[in-house]
């Protein structure tokens, strides 16, 4: 083994779980997460893998400091999927609560709508990430 091997052993502090649903709001959630990922503010993660009980993905998510659920609408699929896997998100955002109307089956959205969601997420992250500690540490400190 080489100690110079490319390493993926520093878990991302922030994992982003958009619902990526089949509406304008679901797509806003998805694209906002992509933009934050590309800006280095977090890592887009596989919500489908969590819902599919893929053990490796669930264990990987446990290593993160902050889990972010981004739901398009009040069905709250992303948040509920994480909670089913015993991974409650520390940050939760619902696109329709930002004044954006849901249009089922319509996937188009404006740059302004995307900016509203992305900027709110960025604000939430700035406020919370500095306070976050690893999940295990939080659990231990609660004892």
């Amino acid at each position, binding site marked *: *083994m080489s*100690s110079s091997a490319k390493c993926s052993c520093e878990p991302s502090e922030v994992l982003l779980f958009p619902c990526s649903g089949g509406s304008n709001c679901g797509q806003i959630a998805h694209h906002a997460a992509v933009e934050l990922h590309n800006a280095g503010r977090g890592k887009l993660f596989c919500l489908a893998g969590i819902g599919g009980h893929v053990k*490796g*993905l669930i264990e990987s998510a446990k290593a993160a400091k902050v889990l972010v659920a981004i739901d398009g609408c009040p069905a709250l699929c992303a948040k509920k999927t994480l909670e089913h896997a015993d991974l409650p998100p520390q940050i939760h955002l619902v696109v329709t609560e930002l004044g954006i109307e849901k249009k089922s089956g319509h996937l188009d959205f404006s740059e302004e709508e995307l900016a509203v969601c992305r900027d709110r997420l960025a604000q939430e992250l700035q406020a919370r990430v500095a306070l976050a500690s690893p999940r295990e540490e939080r659990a231990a400190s609660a004892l």
Partner: protein
Amino acid sequence: MKKVQVLGPGCPKCQQAAANVSEAAKALGLEVEVEKVSKPMDIAKYGVMFTPGLAVEGEVVCAGRIPSVEEIKGWLEAKPAKEQQK
């Protein structure tokens, strides 16, 4: 003999995880085959995004951290999930 997969590219943390597996097996007096899975695509098959990861008989038990010897002892002593369902 139980088979344990250590998932990671081979950095010092991965090496420590593998060493902890050996120590746990020795403490329990168990023979364990340690398989090092280091290719990214092979690691991806386990769904592990952060390494080191550990799988016992192919079942992922942790990822993104070095598990302690005590934790590993628990996983080595546990019955496989398939056997528990019988």
